[in-house]
């Protein structure tokens, strides 16, 4: 399988690469349009801040390319938020692929929401073989509210979208590459889509 990780200098790509390696899959890191277009599957990681990540994408013309992709696509953490229309983080217009908006947590609880939290209302083959209430590792200060594209929920304290799906675009707010055996299973499920 030709698996490409989008490398746009705004993500902990190494962790994703290693997680796939543990599954016996060698992925290619690339920011080149031809390489990404030719992939069987694409993973889009991201940590950091939304507006600078968007600037990195624009600098490589990836803001035009990514929405046009038709193969299975998996956005992780900031990679999920960038797939949405708009983020409250520095009032940033994002890729606009998934018709959802990204909001800042407004809670008395600690922000960032950091640590292991449970997934519930699991839908789609992405969560094949996982139990309700399975734990995943989260670290984020912005979130996507529940909506028609939500395929998994977590609560902090209110329920929010732990994962989204829109057409061929899948996305997780948590880090499957850092979520132990459950996270590996989710990556494996994506590879099997």
């Amino acid at each position, binding site marked *: 399988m030709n698996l490409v990780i989008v490398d746009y200098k705004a993500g902990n790509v190494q962790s994703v690469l290693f997680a796939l390696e543990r599954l016996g899959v060698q992925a290619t890191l690339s920011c080149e349009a031809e390489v990404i277009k030719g992939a069987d599957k694409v993973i889009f990681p991201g940590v950091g*801040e939304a507006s600078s990540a968007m600037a990195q994408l624009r600098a490589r013309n990836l803001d035009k390319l990514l929405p046009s992709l038709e193969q299975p696509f998996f956005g992780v953490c900031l990679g999920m938020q960038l797939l949405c229309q708009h983020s409250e983080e520095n009032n940033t217009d994002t890729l606009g692929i998934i018709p959802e908006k990204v909001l800042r947590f407004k809670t008395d609880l600690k*922000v960032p929401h950091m640590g292991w*939290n449970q997934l519930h209302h699991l839908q789609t083959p992405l969560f094949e073989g996982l139990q309700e209430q399975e734990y995943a590792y989260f670290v984020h200060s912005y979130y996507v509210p529940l909506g028609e594209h939500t395929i998994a929920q977590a609560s902090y304290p209110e329920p929010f979208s732990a994962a989204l799906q829109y057409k061929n675009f899948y996305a997780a707010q948590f880090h499957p590459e850092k979520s132990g055996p459950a996270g590996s299973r989710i990556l494996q499920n994506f590879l099997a889509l």
Partner: protein
Amino acid sequence: MLTKRIVPCLDIKNGRCVKGIQFENIRDAGDPVQLAAWYAEQGADELVFLDITATNEERKTFAALVRDIARHIDIPFTVGGGIGAVADVELLLQAGADKVSVNSSAIRHPQLVEELANRFGSQCVTVAIDTKYTELTGWKVYSRAGTVETEHATIDWAKRVTELGAGEILLTSMNNDGTKAGFALDITGEVARAVSVPVIASGGAGTMQHFADVFHQASADAALAASLFHFRELEIPVLKGFLKEQGVDIRI
């Protein structure tokens, strides 16, 4: 429900674990990768690796080790010790670390915290604070591995680094560290209430009840221990079972 985190801490010198860690089922207990994998399997929620080497040459070994750890373990980990510049952090994050912790360098140049948060995001910037109480000074921040008293009151410093962009505070009470008499509940609670980011309590863990106390009474988000776990005085699955029974939200 977000769970409280149990965090074993490993001291690294020249690419090896220090302190005589004894595990029958680990062939090379000085190997940080094997030890990390074992802790992950035992249910540790994340790990901290502190580089206590002195020379720059040895620091290169540490970056290579971070890469090796990231290759093999599938839970988050923080690295710290001697980080002084943005370039150090870039190297460690690129190697696969999830977070870095800064301590003395943040005291020397508080703007470093802001630079790191802007460049890499608050979520990967932990500020480690070593604090010590005396009747004369109250709780003061110490730098350079706890050897130099600074002008900063602990609460003020915790608030300041949070404003600068720290995403987490790792608070070590020097009064409690090594005593096994329990965490410093008073200052940990004060810091946890004063800042809006998660707080890891460190220093003084000796019994399972100490962990329950720091979560219940001091509102810590995570608790760190080193020798207690390394010498197997306390097994993580047993600790987590106990905490669950005590009504602490914990991942089992």
